């Protein structure tokens, strides 16, 4: 039988399948771990409604907890409050940068207006130049947008704030 602290520790080792340098706890998607009579309940929140990694993450969570000695494990989804990139741990930000993904800036407050052609001058994660251009609002996954560095000419991704 695992304690709650041990369960959290096991979850620290579960990586996001799309960004395998950041754990699900650092990403802020594990909202609660509840030790009950019917086993261990892990409450997660999705990053995006259609994120295809959600089911894989749930499976990895169950596998990791069972490997750590948990008995019955269930994963449930909680939508409210909705996940925000502001919940990504500080520790994950440098890891993202080293992996080639610029970490998110603070999310827009609710009710904020959409600004047209808001091209953020993001620093290139490789050469640090801020001479960069956004190629697309959407990158290889819904949570990232695609940029190019005009100095080192390398493409890079930006974890967009939501």
């Amino acid at each position: 039988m695992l304690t709650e602290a041990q369960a959290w520790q096991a979850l620290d080792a579960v990586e996001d399948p799309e960004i395998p340098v950041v754990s699900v706890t650092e990403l802020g998607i594990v909202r609660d771990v509840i030790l009950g009579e019917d086993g261990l309940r892990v409450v997660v929140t999705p990053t995006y409604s259609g994120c295809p990694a959600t089911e894989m993450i749930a499976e990895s969570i169950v596998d990791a907890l069972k490997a750590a000695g948990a008995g019955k494990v269930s994963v449930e989804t909680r939508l409210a409050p909705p996940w925000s990139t502001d919940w990504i741990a500080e520790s994950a930000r440098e890891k993202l940068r080293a992996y080639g993904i610029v970490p998110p800036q603070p999310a827009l407050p609710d009710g904020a207006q959409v600004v047209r052609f808001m091209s953020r001058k993001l620093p290139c994660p490789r050469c640090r130049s801020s001479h960069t251009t956004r190629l697309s609002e959407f990158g290889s996954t819904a949570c990232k947008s695609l940029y190019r560095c005009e100095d080192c000419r390398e493409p890079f991704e930006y974890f967009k704030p939501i």
Partner: protein
Amino acid sequence: MGATAMTSTNPAHLEYVLRLGDAALIHGQRLSEWCGQAPVLEEDLALANMALDFVGQARMLLSHAGTLEGKGRDEDTLAFLRHEGQYRNPTLCEMPNTDFAHTMIKGFLLGSFNLLMWSRLCGSSDKALAAIAAKSLKEARYHAEHTGDWVIRLGDGTEESHRRAQAALDMLWPYTNELFAANPTDDAAAAAGVGPAWSDLAEDWEKAVLPVLKHATLTVPARTPFQTYGKFGRHSEHLGHLLAVMQHLPRSFPGATW
């Protein structure tokens, strides 16, 4: 959503949620048809990602509709085993794809509506729906921004891109009338605090849409009495074909998993 799992005794409530779910599903399906066919790779990714957001929203909404109904129908049953006349999406969602400008104009008109809709639904008396709305609102901002940028680029672009954007706007504009139409279902849902009266969104929608179209140097067509009735279950000839593609696999191989 275990804590909020309860059926609704109000049939208008169920119908209302079904409409939201169908709008997301059918728009998502149309966007997904672009996968592998977009004019540039970046847009292929963007369209597929937006399609995923809409299908994800549809899953949450249809699951919720199934719970409200309380007859054991889940998201898959509702998505794959209903017939054309049982769908409740606005006709605009089912209009077939033509060119890229058409998809961006449609995405922008719908996306601007969704932004207002989700922001109002965050205050729904249905707590599960309010949670879905808060989640979807964040995604809708990116959809509206992305499609809005393209509307400006295409409209205020080359002669050819302008011509295509204007043709798409002329073609799709009359279908936006339906977004603000209501029948007793909508009135009952609005009275119960489930969601806004659609006519209340019309003014804010125009305030959001018109400046962008102007910036894009596009001419806004005059309003006409043209009215479509998709959300009341009377669809264009296009929905059946879309469903044939979307439902083919689960109908041919019931219960298939992989």
